[in-house]
Each structure stands twice: as structure tokens, then as C-alpha cells.
């Protein structure tokens, strides 16, 4: 997990006070793309951890690919939703 932002509590408080909402349509996208890519990573890693086996190169490539796809999606979403 990333280090928590120093002003994280402040940000969450602002979201609460100003009632900042993310449109359902944006959540649809997030759910679809992030969940499916995270799902693949969780499955691959979980299986190898369960059997105490190292992750083969092929699976490592799949994980890297899923991470790249997540990054691309976040970039696209940011460009589509930014205000300034």
C-alpha cells in the first residue's frame, strides 16, 4: 500500500463536507477495468502463494501487463474527467 498522504484526513473531510460525489458512470468504468485487472493479479499471485511456489516468468509478464493496463486506464480516466 502507498504511504498515506500527510493531508489525507483533510481530503476525506473535504469530500464529506462538500459532499463530493463521483458519477455512477465513472464507477462503472473503474469497476470494470480495475476489478478485472486486479482480479487477474490476485488470482495468479494467490495461487502461487498458496502452493508456496515462485511465480513463473510467464505469469510475471501477465502481472506486468495488467499493471500497465491499469496505468493506461487511470491516465485515460484522468484526461476525461479533469476540470482544468
Amino acid at each position, binding site marked *: 500500500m502507498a504511504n498515506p498522504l500527510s493531508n489525507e484526513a483533510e481530503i476525506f473531510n473535504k469530500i464529506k463536507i462538500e459532499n463530493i460525489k463521483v458519477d455512477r458512470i465513472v464507477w462503472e468504468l473503474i469497476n470494470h477495468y480495475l476489478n*478485472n485487472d486486479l482480479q487477474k493479479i*490476485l488470482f495468479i499471485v494467490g495461487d502461487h502463494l498458496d502452493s508456496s511456489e515462485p511465480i513463473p516468468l510467464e505469469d510475471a509478464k501477465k502481472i506486468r501487463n495488467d499493471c500497465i493496463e491499469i496505468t493506461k486506464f487511470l491516465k485515460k480516466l484522468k484526461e476525461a474527467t479533469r476540470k482544468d
Partner: protein
Amino acid sequence: MKKKIGKGIKILILDDERDLCAFMKGFFIKRGFQVKTALTGQAAINLIKRATPNIAILDIYLCKGNKNGIDILKHIKKNKPGCHCVMISGHKEKYEQDSFQFGAEDFLVKPLTIQKLEKSINKMVYKIKKEEGAHG
């Protein structure tokens, strides 16, 4: 060596993500299950016509085809009521109630670990074995 808990049990997996389908197929084959996969709702219906699965793992939101996992759940419960259905979706609030209303045995929220899915499938196996025992 994995314990072959699934010996003699047929699983149908419906997921339009090819990689996820392939992964789940391999995972459950290693545990002794007979596994068929479908990338669309229509493909799942065609497979169900040919052989009755004991368990169906149904992803609800499908980008391919015009049927979703709930449509397939309804189809299974109408035509193969003995099949146990495990639904998977990232939209708990949207689909969980409908899933149970139409007869699903379990509802899992994406993203989930493979251990959570395995636990759910093991529960179905237990139910199936219990039913088989009850029917002699």
C-alpha cells in the same frame, strides 16, 4: 499435489475475460474438476444443453453478447435446477439481491482472491455430496 476434491464434478465457468477463464479452468482442473468455459452467455447456454454442470461460476457483467450472468442464472435454474450457481460481480449493490432472488447459492464481489472462490466452490461440493448421499 492438490487434493482432488472435485473428482466427478462438472463446473461451467462463464467469464468474458479470456485470461480469467483460462486461469480458473487450470486451477479447478488441478483439483480434479471437469471444467468447461464460455466467453459469452450464448456459449454457456450451448454448453448447458450438451451437459449438465454441477456448479456454474457466472460473471454477471459481460461485454460480449447480449446476455448477462443473471440471464444465464435464470436459464440454469429453469432448465437444470440441480446446478449450484456462484455469481461474481463488482456491482454488489446492483446485482446481489437479484442473484439470490433468482436462486444463486453464493455471490462474490470482485476483485476476490482465488482462495475465496475456492472456499465457495468447496461449499458447493459439500452440498452436492450431501445431496448425493441423501439420494442414495
